[in-house]
Every structure is written in structure tokens, then in C-alpha cells.
């Protein structure tokens, strides 16, 4: 592996900026809480007890390390590079989200907060938060757009079974961005006793940094497993990008190795030509939303636009600021897969490998299949299989005209 360091590895800077992105654009009431969180995190990050508690739960509660699996039949089908899948779908609760919620719940515990709140789109982060709330004995409230409550009924019920309260958000577009607005409003009002577990690598500093750090276990494991399984590092990494947490978890440990290509796959929805997609890195421009500067989908007046994706977890008009920086400096490429391509990839992986991917992860699979075909058989692609598809079966059945 090369040791030259063309990129600044110490980001974010002291103000939480990644180049022009990131920062802390919040109303004054939250400044003190974010300062406190930042101070606590910087202390605990290097604290042996905290790290041991985190590692222990990742091993024995989440089930890490997650396997790195060579998808032989998918590889043969594509006829090019070897496709390995990082099996985050095998984690407890079925997605990468739990890595982050364990980390943040531990922070909450160390800070003496008894109540946690979370926003959720697909419900995966909500379920992961409700799960750790049960695990650590915390009170949990999850904000979810009423559109998503409707299309992710199963996850809503899971959260309730876990003892969480689910609040349906009726404002704005009634999806993930509005759930995040409402969670922020609740936090402002209950800032003394409540810890806000943000579910992706976005939001005000220090969230993008700490979510990235908690998710980076994914990339570090891939580094080790790659050497064990094929004696070197992969040629390319592929991950879907909603807010960007599973992607940054895979990418971050690789930023310093420029020979490893990185591809983030956004939700192309009905296609990038119109407005029915959720691809701010591909089609948006920098602006300020939810506490950070980052690429956004906005109209000519700076109003945030509604988004569309077949997968609720990618249906977000912004993206974590580190991805915006990686795009600006050219270290990662951001591409898109449409609803149809993702659906097709879902069926392919299910039929060729017996693995049902989440619709979010299906976007990564879709792009990896195209990419593999352009590469040589001695090359390797690692795809982050961020979650399993059980939660999406109802959606897929409806789209296929089956009434399950």
C-alpha cells in the first residue's frame, strides 16, 4: 500500500469543517449541547474503558466482524471483476445502523442522559435506536414522517415492540428530512435530559465525525479481511449513499490509499434528468440544511426540494459533509442507480446468491454489477451490503403486483 498522503486526514478541522462543508449551523439553544457532546466525545474517543465497552458490544451484541463474502455466481454473471460483499446485513437488527447507535447510546450513558431520540426514514435507524434503548435501559422516542410510517409499517411495529414511542411527523414533505426537523425541535425543548442519536453521518458538528468514527469499523474490517482472503487491498469500493453513513464507514479508512477507487451510489429515482430522485451529490449544489453545509437538492430560491426514491432510507435531499468534500477533492466518485436498476439488482442478488439486500443496498449492487463488467477478472470490488431486504418485501411485492 502506498504511504503518500495527498489528502488531509485530520478532518474535520476544529470547527467541524471538511473543506467548505460541514460546520455547525444551528440555532443558539443547541450550541451548548453540541459543545458538551464534542468535549465528551473527544475525551471518550481515546478512553480505554469506552473503547472496550464499544468493542465488546460490537462483538457480542452486534455479531462483528461481519463476513466479507465472495459472490461467485454474481461475479460470473457480470463477467469481470470479482465482487465481494461486506455483510452488514448480518448484523443484529439487519443493517449497519446498529454500529452507530451502540456508539451513541454509550455516549448517552457516559453523559448521564436517560432519554434518547432519533429520526428515521426506512425505520432501520429507528429500530437500531429502539434496540439499544432496550439494551441500555433508556427511554426512546423516534420521529418518522407520516409517509414513511405508512410505507414501513413493519418497522414501526418493531419499534413499538421494543418499547419505543413512534411519533408520526405531519409537516413538510412528511419524510426523513421533516423527521429530522422535528427531532431537532424536540431536542431544543428537552436539551437538558435528552440525547439525540442522529442516524447518519450528517447534521451539525460533531455528529458527522462521530458517526463516521463509529461506522469506520466496517472499512477497518475490510482492510484486514482483504489481506486475509486475497492478499491485498481491493481495487474499488462501492456503497449506497443516503446520508452517507455506511459509505463513509467503508470509505474513511481507505481515503489515504489513493489506488483504491471509491464509488458512492445515490438514489437515481426515476432518472437524473427530472427532479424525481435523491441525488444531491450528482445534481445538487452546496447549501445549508440540518446544521451543516453540504450538497443539497434545492430550487432556485434555496428552498429544499422533495425527493423521490424507491427506498425510504435514501430519500433525503442532503448528504453527509465528508462526502461533499470527497467529491470536491475528487477522491471519491458519486454516481446514481435508478429505482428500476435497484429493483433489478435486488432480484439478481436474491436469485444468484440467496441474499436479499435492502433496497438501499440494492443501489450499490446495481452499480457494482455495471462496474465489474468494465474491469478485469483479477480485479476486486468490495460492495457494502448495508442491510437486508426483509423490511422491503412488502414494497417489492406491491411493485411486482403480488398482494402478500
Amino acid at each position: 500500500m502506498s504511504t503518500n498522503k495527498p489528502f488531509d486526514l485530520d478532518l474535520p478541522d476544529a470547527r467541524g469543517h471538511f473543506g467548505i462543508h460541514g460546520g455547525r449551523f444551528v440555532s443558539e439553544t443547541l450550541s451548548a449541547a453540541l459543545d458538551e457532546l464534542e468535549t465528551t466525545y473527544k475525551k471518550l474517543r481515546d478512553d480505554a474503558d469506552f473503547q472496550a465497552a464499544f468493542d465488546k458490544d460490537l462483538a457480542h451484541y452486534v455479531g462483528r466482524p461481519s463476513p466479507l463474502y465472495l459472490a461467485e455466481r454474481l461475479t460470473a454473471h457480470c463477467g469481470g471483476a470479482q465482487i465481494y460483499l461486506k455483510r452488514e446485513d448480518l448484523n443484529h437488527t439487519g443493517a449497519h445502523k446498529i454500529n452507530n447507535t451502540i456508539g451513541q447510546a454509550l455516549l448517552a450513558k457516559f453523559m448521564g442522559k436517560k432519554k434518547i431520540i432519533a429520526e428515521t426514514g426506512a425505520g432501520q435507524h429507528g429500530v437500531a435506536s429502539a434496540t439499544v434503548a432496550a439494551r441500555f435501559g433508556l427511554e426512546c422516542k423516534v420521529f418518522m414522517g407520516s409517509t414513511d410510517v405508512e410505507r414501513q409499517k413493519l418497522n414501526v411495529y418493531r419499534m413499538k415492540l421494543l418499547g419505543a414511542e413512534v411519533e408520526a411527523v405531519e409537516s413538510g414533505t412528511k419524510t426523513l428530512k421533516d423527521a429530522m426537523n422535528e427531532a431537532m425541535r424536540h431536542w431544543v425543548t428537552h436539551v437538558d435530559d435528552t440525547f439525540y442519536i442522529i442516524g447518519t453521518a450528517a447534521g451539525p458538528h460533531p455528529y458527522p465525525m462521530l458517526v463516521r468514527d463509529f461506522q469506520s469499523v466496517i472499512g477497518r474490517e475490510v482492510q484486514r479481511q482483504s489481506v486475509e482472503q486475497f492478499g491485498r487491498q481491493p481495487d474499488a469500493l462501492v456503497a449506497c449513499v443516503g446520508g452517507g453513513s455506511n459509505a463513509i464507514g467503508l470509505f474513511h479508512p481507505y481515503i489515504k490509499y489513493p489506488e483504491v477507487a471509491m464509488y458512492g451510489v445515490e438514489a437515481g429515482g426515476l432518472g437524473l434528468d427530472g427532479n424525481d430522485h435523491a441525488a444531491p451529490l450528482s445534481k445538487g449544489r452546496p447549501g445549508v440544511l440540518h446544521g451543516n453545509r453540504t450538497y443539497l437538492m434545492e430550487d432556485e430560491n434555496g428552498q429544499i426540494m422533495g425527493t423521490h426514491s424507491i427506498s425510504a432510507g435514501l430519500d433525503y435531499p442532503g448528504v453527509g459533509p465528508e462526502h461533499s468534500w470527497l467529491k470536491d477533492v475528487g477522491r471519491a466518485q458519486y454516481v446514481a442507480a435508478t429505482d428500476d436498476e435497484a429493483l433489478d439488482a435486488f432480484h439478481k442478488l436474491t436469485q444468484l446468491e440467496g441474499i436479499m439486500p435492502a433496497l438501499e443496498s440494492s443501489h450499490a449492487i446495481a452499480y457494482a454489477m455495471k462496474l465489474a463488467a468494465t474491469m478485469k477478472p483479477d480485479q476486486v470490488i468490495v460492495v457494502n451490503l448495508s442491510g437486508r431486504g426483509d423490511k422491503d418485501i412488502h414494497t417489492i411485492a406491491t411493485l411486482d403486483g403480488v398482494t402478500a
Partner: protein
Amino acid sequence: MSRIKNAFASLEAQGKKALIPYITAGDPQKDATVPMMHALVNAGADIIELGVPFSDPMADGPTIQLACERALAHNTSLHDVLAMVAEFRTTNSSTPIVLMGYLNPVERMGYETFVAAAVEAGVDGVLMVDLPPEEAVDVEGFFKSRDLDMIYLIAPTTKDERIERIGHAGSGYVYYVSLKGVTGSKALDVDDVARNLERIRKHVSIPVGVGFGINTGETAAAVSKVCDGVIVGSAIVNLIAANADNAKAAQDAVSALVGSMRTALDA
């Protein structure tokens, strides 16, 4: 002297406190806003906070969220808001106007373009809820170069050293958020506000306005004893919402409320 500074100086000379109503521009219709601004002045407003509608008003409660939605239903843009200010200025050259809102519409327009257009239209100050002084260092030069006042928030959670920094960074006035919560909350505690104002005054030499949770003349009068001005938003916006189909009725209802607050403040 800036219009805002002027307004506070002349109020102080008369022993009065500033009454600062907030309305969302373009709510419920674009052409309702300028007449409503004049009605506010006639009823006793000293400064007007004019809300720039935003799709994701994170610091606002349901009342102002819905006002933004009504205004955005017919695409009230930052350009439109500046045009409203310019129109207001054709017959009123003295009442200060502060644009209040979120950063992204300004980011989109571009700081330099925005500042030039705002000054041209007759705007006096800007309060961007999600632009704290730490982030403003990159852009405050644009505002200062044209003498646009930068109004910052101070919250109950703000620590003393930050209060000092905000006191230095801001001009015109600072806006003390009376409670931990969003706009339209009802839990304002006058004694708590008084204690915090004492703390703030030690570090801040410009006037301090207090907002969030002020909805009656009685609260306004009580709070005004310890500050330089009171900001009233959701109580007014609720009246506009209740009379959304009748501009005249909305003006009458709002004038009555603002008038009663003026009377209570001056008593």
C-alpha cells in the same frame, strides 16, 4: 446612525420599550404583507421582523411552520421579500426592518448579491437563525461593509463567554430566546428571564430584545421591565392564519393585539 440604533435611542429618550412584531412574508398572500406592515406600524410597532419563508424551519413551532407553508404555496421567494421591503419604504422611511429566517435562501442568492439587494431595498438588519457567530466569521464582512446589522440569538443555555462573543459580534440588538424550545411555546417564565438578562447585561452593551412565548400585553409588559424590547411572533401569525381569507379582518385583529400590547408596554 442606523435606523435600528436610532429607534432604540429615541425610545430610551422617551422612557419606552421597543415593540417588535414578527410576520412571515407572503402569508397568506404576497399582496397582504405590505399593508400588514403598515398596519403594524400604525398600531404601535417600533421595528418589524419580517420572516423569509423557508421549507425547513427547524427552530419554529407549528404556527410559523404553517405560515411558511402558506407563503411557499405561492412561491414567496427572497426576491419577493426584498421587493416587499422596497414597496414598504416608498411610504415609510423610518421604521427599521429586520429580515428573519434561515441561511439557505441567502446562500443560494449569494452573500454579496443579497447584501447589496437588501440595502437597496431598505433592510436594516438580518437575523439568520442557523448562522451562529462562529460560522458567520466567513461571511460577516459582506454585511459589515454595507452597515447591515447582524442580529444574533442568545439562549438560556448560552454560557457567559459565548454571550460576550455574541455581544461583540452583533449590532443593532441581540435577541434573547426566553426559553428552551421552539417559537410558539407557552412556557415563558418572567423570573427566569430576569435572572438571565442580568447575566447578559454584564457582557452585552447593545439593546436586548426578548422573544418566544410572549402572547399577551401582560407578559409583554412584565418582560419589558428587564429588557429593551419585546418580540411577538406566533400570537400575531395565529391571527393571520385565523383570518387567512379576509385581509381586512386579519389587519383589524392584528392591529387590536399589537395596539393592546403597545398600551400595556407604555402603561
